[in-house]
């Protein structure tokens, strides 16, 4: 079973559909082997219509490069990827990292909203992950 990804610029991405009771939507996930958890960021939170009031605070602290974020957990999210055999579905816990955009200048907010959500090792490591920019191939397979 092969899930083909895409290079956007020079970065590997996978399109995914997320669904859980109160929301559903399609987004890009940047394949990020430096991230331990698959995490939704500000832009996708807004596009999915998720407010932090509906989220459960994360049980563990998160650290990363850049400013501080509030972190939350979304349990039991259905994630669907397009595979060569059809829809490949995972039921998954996702993390959410939310910047405090109200306290930032507009130009900084615009930059943060350009950041993609990430596909972390908690999912990548379940597959053989290929990322070969020279031949234009990015895929998850098993």
């Amino acid at each position, binding site marked *: 079973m092969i899930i083909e990804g895409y290079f956007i610029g020079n970065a590997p991405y996978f*399109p995914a559909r997320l669904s859980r009771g109160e929301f559903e939507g399609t987004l890009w996930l940047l394949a990020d082997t430096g991230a331990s958890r698959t995490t939704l960021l500000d832009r996708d939170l*807004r596009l999915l*219509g998720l407010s932090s009031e509906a989220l459960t605070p994360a049980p563990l602290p998160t650290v990363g490069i850049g400013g501080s974020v509030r972190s939350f957990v979304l349990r039991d999210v259905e994630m669907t990827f*397009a595979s060569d055999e059809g829809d490949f579905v995972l039921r998954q816990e996702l993390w959410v990292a939310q910047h405090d955009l109200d306290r930032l200048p507009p130009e900084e907010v615009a930059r943060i909203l350009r950041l993609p959500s*990430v596909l972390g090792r908690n999912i990548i490591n379940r597959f053989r992950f290929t990322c070969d920019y020279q031949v234009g191939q990015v895929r998850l397979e098993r």
Partner: protein
Amino acid sequence: MSNQFSKELRAFAEDHSWVSDHFESLLDKYAEQWIAVKNRRVIASDVDLMRLRENLADPANTCIEFVTREPLEMLL
């Protein structure tokens, strides 16, 4: 396996490919704006992401990109 969503995911990816392929011409018309693209066509644009979202019938399943000349180095 069902194929219900794979087709939608590929269409979503194709809209993003279209944006990449036409980025220079989109810059001429939509610089520093968010654009929404469906079926390889810009269906809405706005400088404000949330205002754009409010004007879309299905924002959570629409290709949305920021068109800018500003390069961004991402360290995630």
